[in-house]
């Protein structure tokens, strides 16, 4: 696969692992390990999938941040989707969401009871569903970070262009920079640097992290999702830490520009406005979400179907909040691997395959057993 396989080369990975050990050596004497947060769930997945943790020196720790849109989506959102399904609305969703527990049950369970839940790869499939039966209401579950926002919200333009009156979005879009701010505001922030997302950054641009890096004096390195990208990103972070720097570094320059994708930004700006959002784990964060502008209220499922997404009840004992904010690693949750497994997830972090708990469960149990 062009521009994929070259970034999975074993010899280069060995070389980078060696350079990481060198760059980490001067930091070995500190009282606590160097902690790097990978903000993005796709980084979390790749780190697990390639066993990257096992290549790092012991005093270097990767912490999974709030970068899984499923994990940070409040249980109340799933409850609202279930409510719509129970009213006979057809729910279209990315596969990621269907096993996520709401307060009581999940979309997969509702589907087994006859609810119309369609798993889509592309949001455009929802247009097709709406077109097929104009008498049936179709709601697309509009979750995701900046990367996913533009593809999903373009449904509004499609629906308008085709005169589809039965398609709307249940929005729970989330924005990365405000989440970083919320994380950094915690008094006990023990994160030394941030590995910034690849494709979110493709949309918002590497410059979007500048204010954050400056204010909080933390290195922010944008890296791609392939294993060599991640290793080189970690090396870049360590070199900044060695030198006492805190800059934004764009190491995914083959895709990410300083300013980002202006067409996507313009689309988002035209259709959406910032709203306060509740993040599982972080709580309410001002202006950290996106909702449809009032002029597009007809496409807003909450408005159209007269329902409000309220706060949900989290499963008792679930520490997803602490995991997402980097305070706990998944195995430190008392339920991890015991009551909470991918087959019967207690919290959303165990559901989405990129959720920190699921990624640790799937990939991490061996890598973490250090000899």
């Amino acid at each position: 696969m062009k521009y994929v396989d070259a970034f999975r080369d074993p010899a280069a990975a060995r070389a980078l692992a060696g350079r990481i050990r060198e760059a980490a050596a001067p930091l070995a004497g500190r009282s606590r390990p160097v902690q790097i947060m990978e903000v993005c769930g796709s980084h979390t997945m790749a780190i697990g999938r390639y066993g990257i943790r096992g290549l790092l020196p012991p005093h270097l720790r990767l912490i999974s941040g709030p970068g899984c849109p499923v994990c940070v989506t409040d249980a109340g959102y799933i409850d609202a989707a279930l409510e719509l399904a129970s009213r006979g609305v057809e729910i279209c969703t990315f596969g990621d969401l269907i096993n996520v527990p709401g307060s009581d049950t999940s979309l997969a369970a509702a589907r087994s009871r006859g609810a119309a839940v369609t798993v889509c790869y592309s949001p455009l499939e929802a247009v097709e569903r709406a077109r097929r039966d104009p008498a049936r209401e179709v709601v697309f579950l509009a979750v995701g970070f900046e990367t996913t926002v533009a593809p999903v919200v373009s449904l509004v333009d499609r629906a308008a262009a085709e005169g589809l009156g039965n398609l709307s979005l249940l929005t729970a879009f989330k924005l990365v920079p405000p989440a970083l701010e919320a994380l950094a505001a915690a008094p006990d922030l023990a994160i030394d640097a941030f590995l910034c997302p690849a494709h979110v950054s493709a949309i918002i641009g590497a410059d979007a992290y500048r204010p954050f890096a400056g204010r909080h004096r933390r290195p922010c390195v944008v890296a791609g999702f392939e294993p060599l990208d991640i290793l080189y990103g970690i090396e870049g972070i360590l070199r900044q830490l060695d030198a006492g720097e805190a800059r934004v570094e764009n190491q995914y320059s083959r895709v990410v520009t300083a300013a980002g994708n202006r067409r996507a930004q313009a689309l988002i700006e035209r259709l959406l406005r910032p709203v306060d959002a509740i993040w599982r784990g972080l709580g309410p964060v001002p202006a950290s979400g996106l909702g449809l502008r009032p002029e597009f209220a007809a496409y807003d499922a909450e408005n159209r179907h007269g329902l409000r997404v309220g706060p949900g009840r989290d499963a008792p004992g679930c520490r997803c909040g602490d995991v997402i904010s980097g305070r706990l690693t998944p195995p430190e949750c008392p339920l991890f691997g015991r009551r909470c497994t991918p087959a019967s997830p207690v919290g959303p972090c165990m559901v989405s395959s990129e959720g920190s708990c699921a990624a640790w469960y799937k990939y991490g149990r061996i890598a973490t057993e250090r000899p």
Partner: protein
Amino acid sequence: MCLGIPMKIVAVDPAGTGTVELDGVRHAVDLTLIETPKSGDHVIVHAGFAIERLDPAEADARIELFRSLAESRERDGDGG
């Protein structure tokens, strides 16, 4: 949070859609988020949409860098 794979554009339709290819497999793709897409361009595809262009010169330079790191490491006899 955002799986995306580089694919090559092989056809651009006037409606803003097109076809991309990866290892012989062709997918329909929405190209409306890309400024003047052309056949032969590489784009990152996420959820059926091209979300950004991939710059081959930057990609090749990085591949070259990784190759040279690997070579110098192996020359120095430190396999890591």
